[in-house]
C-alpha cells in the first residue's frame, strides 16, 4: 500500500531570521524559522547477539528464545494480570489436570500479548510531526509554511473550497478517511473523494440541512434535513426517509453497532439500527434542543451538551441519563470525546474549554479560555482542535499543556470540524466554505486494512461490509463501563447461594472481582478533616442530648407524682461525661 502520513521527510537547514530583509524585498520572503521534520520515532528492535538478523518469514531456529521485552512496552497490550502459576493452589482451581490446562491457556494469552508487541516491527509508517528549534514557536507557522515543507502529494491535501452561497457547511469524513461529505445549511450536499477530488454526487435538497454523516462505508450517508432525516447513496439517490427522526439537529453514527443517533430539536435522542431499519430507542432528554451531541468511540455512549451547563451521558438501554456532569456555569456549546474514551472536552458560552477525565472521577483536568468554542474535535492521535469564530487552535497533549502548538485562521467562522482519519488533515466547515488544513501528527500512520482501509477496492468494501454486519454488536451491550461484560454477576450469584436451603452444602466461593472497584475518593487530607468534623458533630449532638435529658430530669421535682416514671440513671457513669462536656 502507499504511504499514508509521511509528510515530512525533508529536513531543511535552519535559516537566520531577519537577514537582508530590509535591503531586498525578495529575500524577506524567506520566512521559515522553524524546521519541520519527520519525527523519527526510534523503534527499538530486539537484537540477538551472535545471531544473524532474521528476515521476515524465515523459520525460527529450534532452540531460539527471543529475549524478554521490557515490561512497560508490553503493558499497552496487556489485559490485566493473569493467573500466577506459583500462587495458584489446589483450593483455588480444583484438580491438577484442569489447573494445568487453565494455566497453559493463560500462558498462551500472555505470549499472544508478547507477540502483539513484537509485531510492531511491521508497522513501518512513521507519524508526522513538527520539531521546533530553540527559541522558536510552532505557532508562527501557518499553512503556507507547512505546505512548503511537505512533499507534493501532501501539499495537495491543503486546500480551500470557496462555497459562500449555501454556507455554513457541516463536514464529515468517511470512516476510512477517503471520502468527504459537505452539507450546506441552505441545502447544498456534495460527496466526493477528497484526495483525488473526484465528485461522487452534488445536489441541492431545497431544504435546510442541519447535519451530515457517512454511514458504515462510503456508499451511504445520512442527512438531517429540516423536517426529516434522509439517507442518500453515493450517487445522490434518496434511499430512505426516516420520518421518526424528525427535526434532527445533530447526527452521530456508531459503526460497530450500526446505530444512527440523532439529537432532536424537541429534546429527544433516537437510536436507529441502520442494518435492520428499526428504531432501537427514543428518549426525551428533557433539557431543550439537542444541538450538541457526540459519541464516545470506546463505549458508544452518547454525550449531550445542554443549556444548563451539564453534559449528560446516554445509552439506548436506560431511559434516563446514565450520568450527568455539571461542566460549566453556562450553556455548553461543544463536546468532544477522544478516541480512547479517556478525555472529554467541553466548551461553553462563557468562553472556556475544559478537559475532563472520563474514567471514573469525572474531574476537570485543564481549562483554557480563548472564546466560545463552536467546534471541538479530537484526532486519532489525541490532538485537539478548538475552533472559536474563525480561529482554530490545535493542542497536543491537552491534559498537560495549555498552549496550542498550531493555529489556523479560516476565512469564515467555523461551525464544524473533524480530523480526517489516517491523514494529517483537519477539515473545517465554515461560513465561507470548506478548509482542509495540514496538521502534522494528527492521524494514525499505520492502518489495519481489515478494520479500516483507505485504499480498499470495491470487493474489499463489500467483504468488509458483510464482516462488519456479522460482527455487529447488539445495542443491549452498550454500557458506561464496558469492562462489566467480562465480569461475573456477583449479586445474583450471592443471592442464589443465599437462597439455597440451609441443609444443602454451599460451595465456598470468594466473590471479590478481578478489577478493583475504584470509586472516586476524597483526598486523604480532606478525609481526615472530614472525620474530625464528624467526630465534633457527634460529640456535640451527644452533649445536646445529654443536656436535654438532664433538663427533663430537672424539670420534675422530687415530689412530682410522675417522678416514678423517670428512668433511674447510673449517676456514677454519667457524671464524668458531664464534666467532659463542660470542658
Amino acid at each position, binding site marked *: 500500500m502507499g504511504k499514508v502520513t509521511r509528510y515530512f521527510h525533508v529536513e531543511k537547514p535552519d535559516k537566520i531570521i531577519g537577514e537582508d*530583509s530590509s535591503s531586498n524585498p*525578495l529575500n*524577506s520572503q524567506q520566512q521559515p524559522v522553524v524546521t519541520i521534520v519527520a519525527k523519527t520515532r526510534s523503534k527499538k528492535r530486539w537484537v540477538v547477539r551472535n545471531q544473524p538478523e532474521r528476515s521476515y518469514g524465515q523459520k525460527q531456529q529450534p532452540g531460539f528464545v527471543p529475549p524478554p521485552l521490557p515490561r512497560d512496552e508490553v503493558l499497552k497490550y496487556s*489485559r490485566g494480570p*493473569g*493467573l500466577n502459576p506459583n500462587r495458584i493452589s489446589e483450593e*483455588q*482451581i480444583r484438580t491438577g489436570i*484442569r*489447573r494445568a490446562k487453565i494455566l*497453559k491457556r493463560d500462558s*498462551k*494469552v500472555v505470549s*499472544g500479548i508478547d507477540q502483539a508487541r513484537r509485531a510492531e516491527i511491521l508497522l513501518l509508517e512513521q507519524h508526522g510531526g513538527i520539531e521546533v528549534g530553540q527559541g522558536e514557536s510552532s505557532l508562527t507557522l*501557518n*499553512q*503556507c509554511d507547512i505546505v*512548503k515543507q511537505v512533499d507534493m502529494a501532501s501539499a495537495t491535501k491543503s486546500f*480551500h*473550497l470557496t*462555497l459562500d452561497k449555501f454556507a455554513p457547511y457541516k463536514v464529515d469524513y468517511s470512516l476510512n478517511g477517503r471520502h468527504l461529505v459537505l452539507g450546506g445549511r441552505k441545502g447544498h450536499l*456534495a460527496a*466526493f473523494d477528497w484526495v483525488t*477530488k473526484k465528485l461522487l454526487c*452534488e445536489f441541492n435538497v431545497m431544504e435546510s440541512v442541519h447535519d451530515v454523516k457517512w454511514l458504515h462505508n462510503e456508499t451511504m450517508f445520512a442527512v438531517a434535513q429540516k423536517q426529516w432525516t434522509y439517507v442518500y447513496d453515493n450517487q445522490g439517490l434518496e434511499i430512505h426517509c426516516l420520518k421518526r427522526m424528525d427535526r434532527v439537529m445533530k447526527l452521530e453514527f456508531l459503526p460497530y453497532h450500526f446505530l444512527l443517533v440523532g439529537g432532536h430539536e424537541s429534546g429527544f435522542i433516537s437510536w436507529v439500527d441502520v442494518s435492520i431499519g428499526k428504531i432501537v430507542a427514543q428518549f426525551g432528554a428533557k433539557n431543550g434542543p439537542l444541538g450538541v451531541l457526540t459519541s464516545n468511540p470506546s463505549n458508544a455512549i452518547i454525550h449531550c451538551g445542554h*443549556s444548563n*451547563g451539564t453534559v449528560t451521558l446516554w445509552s439506548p438501554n436506560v431511559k*434516563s441519563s*446514565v*450520568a*450527568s*456532569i*455539571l461542566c460549566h*456555569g*453556562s450553556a455548553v*456549546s461543544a463536546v468532544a470525546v477522544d478516541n480512547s474514551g479517556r478525555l472529554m472536552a467541553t466548551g461553553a*458560552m462563557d468562553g*472556556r474549554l475544559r478537559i475532563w477525565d472520563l474514567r471514573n472521577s469525572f474531574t476537570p483536568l485543564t481549562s*483554557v479560555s480563548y472564546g*466560545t468554542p463552536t467546534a471541538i474535535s479530537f484526532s486519532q492521535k489525541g490532538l485537539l482542535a478548538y475552533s*472559536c*469564530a474563525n480561529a482554530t487552535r490545535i493542542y497536543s497533549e491537552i491534559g498537560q499543556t*495549555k498552549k496550542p502548538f498550531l493555529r489556523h485562521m479560516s476565512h469564515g*467562522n467555523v461551525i464544524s470540524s473533524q480530523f480526517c482519519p489516517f491523514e494529517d488533515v483537519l477539515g473545517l466547515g465554515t*461560513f465561507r466554505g470548506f478548509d482542509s*488544513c495540514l496538521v502534522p501528527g494528527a492521524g494514525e500512520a499505520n492502518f489495519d486494512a481489515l478494520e479500516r482501509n483507505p485504499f480498499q477496492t470495491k470487493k474489499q468494501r463489500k467483504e468488509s461490509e458483510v464482516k462488519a454486519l456479522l460482527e455487529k454488536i447488539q445495542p*443491549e451491550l452498550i*454500557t458506561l*463501563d464496558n469492562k*462489566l461484560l467480562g465480569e461475573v454477576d456477583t449479586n445474583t450469584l450471592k443471592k442464589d447461594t443465599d437462597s439455597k436451603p440451609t441443609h444443602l452444602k454451599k460451595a465456598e*466461593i*470468594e466473590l*471479590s472481582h*478481578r478489577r478493583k472497584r475504584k*470509586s472516586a475518593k476524597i*483526598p486523604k*487530607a*480532606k478525609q481526615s*478533616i472530614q472525620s474530625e*468534623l464528624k467526630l465534633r458533630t457527634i460529640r456535640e449532638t451527644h452533649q445536646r442530648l445529654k443536656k436535654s435529658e438532664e433538663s427533663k430530669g430537672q424539670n420534675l421535682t422530687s415530689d412530682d407524682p410522675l417522678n416514678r416514671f423517670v428512668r433511674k440513671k447510673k449517676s456514677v457513669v454519667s457524671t464524668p461525661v458531664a464534666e467532659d462536656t463542660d470542658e
Partner: protein
Amino acid sequence: MTLELLPRSQKQKVKLDSDYDDSDDGFDDESFTVDEKSHDTLIQSLKSSLKTNRKRVQEAEGIVDPKGNLLNLRLSKGPVSDAEILNFFDDKDKEFHKKLKRAVKPKILKKGEKSLSLTTSLKKPVIKRIQREILYNNAKKDVSKWNSIVYHNRLADQLIFPLPEKNAIRKDGKKELEDNFVPITPLEEKLATLIHGEGYVEKRKAEIFGIKEGVTEEDIYVRTVEEALERHHELARLRAVQSYEMAKAKRNGKIKSKKYHRLQRKQKIRSQLKEFEELQKTNPEAAMLKLEELDRARIQERMNLKHRNTSKWAKTQIVRAKYNRESRAELSEQLKISRDLTRKVAESSEESDPDDVDLELPGLVKSSLDNPWCLTGSIKDNDKVNMYYTGYKKFWDDVNARKERERKRKEREEARQEEQRKLEEMEQQFVLSQEKVSDEEEKPLPDILKKITKKVKKSKKKTKSKLQTKAFISSEDVPQELSLEDLDDLLTSANQRLEEKVKKGIKRLKGEKKESKLPQKSKKDRNRKNSRYQDGDIDEIRDFNIDDSEINIEKDGNVIEDDDIIPSQSISASLKNTPMRETIENKTGTGEKKEVEKVIDPSHFLEIRKSKKYDMKESDLGFGEENLEEMEVEEDEEKEVEHLKMIAEAFEDEDLIGEFERKKAEEIAGSKPQDINLSLPGWGEWGGQDIKLSRHKRRRFIKKAPLPPPRRDGALPHVILNENGDSGLRHHQVKELPFPFTRVSDFEKTVRAPVGRTWLPEQAMKSLIAPKVITRLGKVIQPIDEDILVKSNRQKTLQLLK
C-alpha cells in the same frame, strides 16, 4: 492385614505342597549344603507333587518369585501348565534354590529349637479374599503404567490421529527419483535400452538390487516381512511422485496463455540450438542428425501459413489495427517472422561466419545440387550445413535484433516519460516559486499553467467537479513597508521571469507547440490583492500579540488561567473560611449535618467569578476593530455570534449549580429504599389529620428499609450517576462460577483476553483456537500400543525370565 498374611499364605502353600511329598530328604537336610543330588531330588519331588495336585495349583494361580512375592504370570490365559512351572524351577540358579529352600523350610527345623505343631490352614473365604486383593493390585499396577501417557495426552495442546507411523512416506525430489529409477516393466526396459543403450537395464538392476550374476529370480524375491514392507514403501513413494509429476504435467497442459506457450516454444528452440552447438563440438554425427531434425521443423513451419496473418487471431488484429498501435506492431512482427522464415537461405549464407566455412561434410555436398534453394543466387561455398546453420543463425539474429529494437523503443518511451515528469515537476516548482515571489499571482497564473499542462499532456480527463478549488493562500509573507510602485515592479519582473521559465520548459519539450501568452494583470486586481495582504499582515501581528499573552500565561502558571479550578489542597485548607459554605448552609438550612456533607462544594471549582470574569478579547474572536473593516463579515455570521453572546448573557445570572444540586438531591432521595408503614391509623389512639404516630407505634409498625449501598457519586458533587445504569447488562453477564474455580477473580482472569484476529496476532490467535484432536478422514485409528511405554528394568528382567 494383607501384609501380615502374605508370608503366611506362602508358607501355607508351600507347605501344602510339601505335605504331599513322600520323600522328605531334601527338607530334612539341615546343613543347607546344596549338591547336585539333593537339587535333583527336590526337583523330582516337586514334579511329582505337581502331577498329583494339579487342581490345587490351578486354584492358586500364583507362584513364588525369587523375591518371595506372589507373582501372577498368567492372568489372562487361565490354568498354569506344568511345563511352565517346571521351566521356572528347572533353573540351575543355585542361589535361588537356596532361597527357595529357606523360605520353604519351617522355623522349627532350625538348630536347637523345639519342634512345634503346624498352624492350621486359613479358611477358604480368607484365602479367596487375599487372592482377590493380590489380583486387584496386580491389575492396578498393570493399568497404571499408562498413567503418565494419559496425563500428557489430556494436557496436550493437540493430538493427531492416527499416531505418526515409523515408516512414513517421504517425498523425494525429482532428481533423487531419477537417480534411483529402475526400469521394471517391459516398456520401461525398452525405453531404457533406447536411451541408455544395451546392457543398461541389467547393470542398473544389479546396482540397485545387488543381484549378482548367476542368482536366480527367486532369490531376488524378498523373504522377510520387513523387506516386503520396505519394498512396499518404496513403491508407494514412487507412485506418489509419479502422481505429482502427472498432476504437474496436467496443470501445465491446461495453461491457455498464449504468451506462456510462445515463451515456452522459444525456450525450446533455444535449448535445441544450444544442444546442437554443443553436439557440434563433441559429436558431429549426432549433430548432423540434430540438424536434420531442426531442418525438418523449419520446413514444417515454412510450409504452414502460421505467420502469414491468415489466422483468426490475425484477422481480428487486422480489424483492430486501424485504431490500435499495438496490434499493428504485432501484425507486422508476424509478417516479419514469416518473411524471415521464407527467405531464401542462399542470401543469408553470405553473412555466415568464416569459421563455419571450413566445415566440410562431403555426404551433403552432392545433394546440394538438387536443392532448388541452392541453385539460385551465388553461393560462396556449397556447404549445406553452413547454409542451414547460418539460416538459423540469421533467424535468431533477426529475433535478437527485433528485441533490441523493442528495447530501444521502450527506452525512448521512458525517456519521453521522464521528460514529461520533469515538466510536471517544473510546473510544481513554478507554483511554489510563484508563491515565494508573491501571493499576487495566485489566481491567474495557476489557471494558465493548468491550461498549458493540459495541452501538453493531452489529458482527456477533466475535473467534472463544479466545486471551485482555489489554492489556499495566506499572504503574510510580504512586509508592510513596500510601496505600491515597488510592488508593481517586483511583480512584473517576477512575471517575466516566470514566463520565460515556462516558455523554456515548454519549448524544450514540444518545440512545435505554440508559445503561451500570459495575460497582463489589471491594476485593479492588484490593488484588491494589496488590500488583502494588508489584512493578512494585521492578522499576523495580532497573532503574535496572542502569543505574547499566552507566554505570559504560561509563566504565571495557574494563577490566571486556573482561577476557576481551585486545587484540592487549597479547598481543604480554606475550608473554614469559604463564604460559599455559609451561603449553602443558609439556603438549605439543615444545620450541622449538612455542613459535614458539603465538604467539597461543586461551586468552588465550578464557580464563575464575576470579579475575574473572562473578558473576551475581540482579537480572540477572530475580528479585531481593524479587522472588522477589512473582513467583510457576513450578516448571518454576525448574527450567529450575536446569538451566542445573547445566550451566554441570558444564562449568566441563572443559578445552574443550585439547580443541579437540587436535582441530585432528588435523585438520591428517589433511589433510596422506602420504609414500610404497617400501622393502622386510629387503632389504639386518636385518628385524624396531622396526628403523629406515637413512638411506640413507630417503633413497632414501621419497618425500616435497609441502608442503601454507598453511591458511586458520593464523593463527586458535580456528578449524578445512575445507579441502575447497567441493570440491562446483567442478563449478559455470567451468573455462575464454573466448576474448577472457587474464586470469581480467578475465573475473570481466565476470560480477560478476547480471542480473535482483531485483538491478537494471527499466530497467537491460531494457537488459542487450535482443535484439540485432529483425525484424518477414512483412516483407521488403532488403539495405543504398549511399545510406546518406556520399559523399566524390572519389566525387562521379567521379560527375560519368561
